[in-house]
């Protein structure tokens, strides 16, 4: 948690004219953080978080999330979208609040998809 706090303001690269250089390795032209949900078998779901600034330590974020939401989770590397966090279950609201609370992203930078 403390390490997260230390990096709290790193994501604030919000210069609208600067979006071309910033998103290398982060997927998409926008520096939005996409929170998506996928249905698995039965009523099980999977939450994916894509677009977090790669300067963060993803493992530590996942570790904190797992503890906080009481779910499992992992980091998946994707050639196009960079590192993506996967969490079990529908954690969309929780992860959104979490990212805001920790200061990784602001409300405007987060986009929640899904139903």
């Amino acid at each position, binding site marked *: 948690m403390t390490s997260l706090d230390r990096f709290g303001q790193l994501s604030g690269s919000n210069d609208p004219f600067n979006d071309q250089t910033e998103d290398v390795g982060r*997927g*998409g032209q926008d520096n939005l953080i996409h929170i998506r949900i*996928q249905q698995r078998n039965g*009523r099980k779901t999977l939450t994916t978080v894509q677009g977090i600034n790669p300067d963060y330590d993803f493992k530590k974020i996942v570790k904190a999330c797992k503890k906080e939401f009481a779910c499992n989770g992992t980091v998946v590397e*994707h050639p196009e*979208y960079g590192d*993506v966090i*996967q969490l079990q279950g529908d954690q969309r609201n929780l992860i959104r609040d979490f990212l805001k609370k920790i200061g990784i992203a602001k409300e405007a930078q987060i986009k929640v*998809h899904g*139903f």
Partner: protein
Amino acid sequence: MADDESLPFDPSMKKKKKKKKTGFDPDAADDVPTETPTEEVNTEEKTAESEQVQEKPVDDDLSLEFSGFKKKKKKKKIDLEELKEALPNEKLEETPEGGDTNNDESDFVDLSLMKKKKKKKVDFEEYSKIQDGTEDSMDTVDSAKKPGNTKGKAWHGSDRDYSYDELLTRVFDIIKEKNPEMVTGEKKKIVMRPPQVLRAGARRTSFANFAEISRMLHRQAKHVLAFLLAELGTSGSVDGNNQLIIRGRFNQKQIENVLRRYIREYVTCHTCKSPDTLLQKEERLFFLQCETCGSRCSVASIKSGFQAVTGRRAAMRANAQ
């Protein structure tokens, strides 16, 4: 001193009074007297007040110099009487205006109405206590504002400046006149038919009126489909009788949510919220052109983003080889 202070205060006081209904009229009356020789005012107030409460008149005299709390209190209690005293001059100006006179009778009963002041004043004129010419200008403003609610033409035939309230009501009256639909219906709401979502088998959902809804939105079914599937993070296709089959279980509420988001992003104009828009594709980018306000803006492209592996990995691997 009292005179100087009271002048700047008056406008604001009067406005407030109008809204509050009963309390204000008395204030106006009080303020006016302060401008005139104070003694006369006091005497007048005392006479009026004496009927109800005798102690308060004394306070009034003292309070005139203060900006207002005591006055307000007094006024509430003594409203009618004070009004009568204060507003004799207005008769001359108000009576010609017409409609106001009719209301006079009801004035006492309807304190809540905005028009009250005028009416009261008119009645009071009969009591006709003499006040100086300085009051006239202030009183006229008050009276004019009140009528403004009804017609906003109160300044007709007078040389004074228009008050802000008058001009405001006038503008709105004109707007209402010119386009009546704004008043009644605001803007016409488009009513969407709810999506019919049924379960098709154990793990598939059918969206029965998908074609119809995309037609209602004036969007290509292809585009809506792409958005739906990207948002839901599944796969699906349109079957023979134009219904959409989506993999996964979804209920109507969920589909409705996604459709709502689609409409917000790709159907309603981002500037004026009008649904009367065209979606055009130019150089791989989609632009939303509004037919109502003429604005044009690019909209986000539809991307499904990262898709986690949810199926059987073994089967995938087998396919790949």
